């Protein structure tokens, strides 16, 4: 029988980035359903970025020399990188809005998109956050209109006389219905429906009617003068779309192995609800099977999930963000820079000898114990080349943690901290932990124990 408190912890691990101390203290009294309700409700009003802050003056751009333009692009790229760090820190800071942050991270992997300028980034992130727990139709249509995705999948080159199929193809293959449910002809016809969907120099969506193909299209057995919205509607009318999306959500939030009967049932109600994401997530988090042993502590954290959990628990602040970017890159996940439109494959693909050792040693590096001395692969058009990571230049604030566990010592302290930090069923016994324990001079026992426990492979799981 799994205790309610363990269930609450599991819920926070999957719906967010791990339970916070203040909730951990109350975990015995919380009820699953009220907590789920709260997470969903709070996610309805996400914190959005003010897109005006990221607008650029087009006139200024026009008078630039070639070199100034190159420098400008570089600056834009750096600012975008900064935004990716800020998002990571926002995820760590979030107290109430953890679910919407987690869902946004999921959708970013689903609608995977590399972005190189700040306004497009803000607009793309806002679009996802607005609909992350809303309606899937609004989300797809919103994404289809983001200049970020339009640029990434070349839809600005999709013109009546020379259609570009890139967006239409990925819309079907990766964003909605999935491979095997459409023909090459469907791709061609859908591409025609999205002709003229473009973005302006200012970074806004623009519909260029002169480039749009207003002719009749035959798509998935239907004929009409469809535009992009119609194509999305026809795709969503197909039950395979609900099935595909639910399958992906199940494998991300519940278990990477999937479960065909549950996915089928969830997909049916998702379809019935007209693609209401909040209802789907409520059903998942409230179901008995979500809390089955096989689903708890069995998911390998993505680099983002791992870093966020680390930053949250240790109260980390960074003096410089460059090393943090290096760490993200070395671990294989830079936000707004997925490997390709299919997103990050996840699971065991995160882990090889190099990424694992970096993860396991990171808590000690953060405590400034030992030099990292880690070389990050060169980037082509990016900020810097072949740089070495040495120090993380971070400060830890573990006061709260120390206060919460101050009354425990040794074996009991170990047990209590393991319960708080590790979600796996098995944990290394205290005898093994303690026999190889070296104190970190500048830290008290609670912090030292916590740092060591966070170095264990078990901490990589959620």
């Amino acid at each position, binding site marked *: 029988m799994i205790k309610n408190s363990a269930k609450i912890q599991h819920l926070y691990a999957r719906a967010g980035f791990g339970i916070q101390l203040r909730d951990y203290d109350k975990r015995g009294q919380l009820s699953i359903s009220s907590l789920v309700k709260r997470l969903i409700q709070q996610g309805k009003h996400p914190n959005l970025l003010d897109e005006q802050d990221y607008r650029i003056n087009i006139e200024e751009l026009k008078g630039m020399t070639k070199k100034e333009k190159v420098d400008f692009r570089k600056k834009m790229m750096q600012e975008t990188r900064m935004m990716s760090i800020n998002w990571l820190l926002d995820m760590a800071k979030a107290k109430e809005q953890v679910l919407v942050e987690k869902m946004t991270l999921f959708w970013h992997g689903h609608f995977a998109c590399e972005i190189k300028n700040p306004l497009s980034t803000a607009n793309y992130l806002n679009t996802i956050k607005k609909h992350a727990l809303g309606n899937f139709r609004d989300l797809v249509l919103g994404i289809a209109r983001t200049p970020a995705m339009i640029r990434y999948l070349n839809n600005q080159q999709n013109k009546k006389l020379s259609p570009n199929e890139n967006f239409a193809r990925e819309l079907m293959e990766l964003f909605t219905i999935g491979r095997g449910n459409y023909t090459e002809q469907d791709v061609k016809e859908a591409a025609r429906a999205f002709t003229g969907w473009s973005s302006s120099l200012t970074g806004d969506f623009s519909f260029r009617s002169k480039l749009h193909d207003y002719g009749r299209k035959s798509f998935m057995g239907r004929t009409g003068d469809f535009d992009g919205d119609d194509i999305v509607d026809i795709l969503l009318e197909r039950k395979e779309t609900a099935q595909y999306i639910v399958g992906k959500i199940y494998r991300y939030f519940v278990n990477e192995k999937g479960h065909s009967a549950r996915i089928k049932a969830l997909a049916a109600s998702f379809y019935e609800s007209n693609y209401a994401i909040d209802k789907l997530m409520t059903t998942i988090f409230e179901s008995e099977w979500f809390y089955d042993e096989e689903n708890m502590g069995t998911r390998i954290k993505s680099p983002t999930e791992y870093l966020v959990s680390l930053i949250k628990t240790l109260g980390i602040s960074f003096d410089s963000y460059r090393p943090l970017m290096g760490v993200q890159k070395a671990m294989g996940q830079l936000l707004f820079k997925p490997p390709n439109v299919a997103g990050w494959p996840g699971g065991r693909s995160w882990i090889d*000898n190099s*990424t694992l050792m970096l993860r396991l040693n990171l808590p000690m590096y953060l405590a400034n114990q030992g030099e990292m001395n880690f070389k990050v692969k060169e980037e082509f058009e990016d900020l810097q*080349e072949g740089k070495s990571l040495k120090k993380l230049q971070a400060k830890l604030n573990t006061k709260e943690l120390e206060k919460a566990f101050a009354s425990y010592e040794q074996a009991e302290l170990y047990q209590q901290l393991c319960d708080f930090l590790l979600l796996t069923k098995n944990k290394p016994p205290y005898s093994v932990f303690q026999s190889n324990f070296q104190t970190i001079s500048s830290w008290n026992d609670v912090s030292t124990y916590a740092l060591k426990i966070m170095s264990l492979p078990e901490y990589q799981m959620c």
Partner: protein
Amino acid sequence: MINRRSFLKQSALASTSILIPAFLQANKHSSAKNQAKKLVVIQLSGGNDGLNTVVPYRNEVYYKLRPTLGIPKQEVLKLNDEVGFNGVMKGMKSIFDEGWMTVLNSVGYPNPDRSHFRSMDIWQTASDADEFLSTGWLGRYLDKQPNEPTPYHAMELDDTLSLALKGKERKGFAVGNIAKLKRGTKNPLLQAVAGHHDHAHEENVAYLYRTMANTFSSADYLYEQSKIYQSFVTYPNHSFGKDLKQTAELIMADTPTQIYYVSLGGFDTHANQKGQQERLLGNLASGLQAFVKDLKANDKLENTLIMVFSEFGRRVKQNASKGTDHGTANNLFLIGGNLKNPGVYNPAPDLLNLDQGDLKHRVDFRQIYATLLDNWLGSSSADTLGKTFKPMDLV
């Protein structure tokens, strides 16, 4: 008789055996049938300008489209009546002259992508241009091994692992510097939990533990292996040269690693190309010359095959910044003592028959991969690449 080499090998095994659980030790001595054959992949990152590497020195179109960037005929190291190496590549010219090199022209793939990242992924995963694979071709080769290979069966000389070496079930081993790798494993707590295997793990946790234990045992083993052979050949003192020296020393020590992966970056020469590219090509040639000399002197050249590639070539026409922009097809080099067709394999690219200013590919790179997999690594290319490609007469 125990000589120094076998003694060190034994003690290397002895020292690691303290740490590694029995199920791993069993694999230590397993040697696949084609283990003796080595493959060294050299990746030129950034898109090397192939036309200024293998120069079509008799082609007027070349000099017309590259009025200032073209390599003057008198500087070219001639390979035949048509093409020759850039003058800075003397080391590679000498390898070529020994009959240890095959130069392939116009290697690429259909619907070429001009993004570095995407094109590199295509080369590393061996996918079609419109297909997204999350495993690399050498990683899938590891997956297909009938017996559990050593953790370092495929090794990348770098701190991070490239997609090329990531399989679904198995992965290559990244090691930028062996001593540093060993230092990184000196965490007593992790050493202790790695040795503590008497409780059942959920399978993903078990995967983490296995990867950790493999890393520790490999770090110790490779550290000992790296001390067995000290190369007497002088390698150039740049990081590429050092990587090749490390590779050579591991090969000479009979390390059961079959695949080595080495990168040389910086080829994205949009502006002021000449100095930058020639410095890199010079490093490439001098490094390879020392490496091949070392292998030859130790009777290892016959069983070693080196493949040098880049994710794409560059546009034929030079740009306004004395550089070149992203292009398509490119040349590729195979080096070894056992080549079926040393020399220039196929004609230089046809500069009068371009696709919007870019070269058309004549050889799909996956034909080369397939040939290497089938004829050199003794694997099945159809399984590893997911389809069949027309084999070539290379090895």
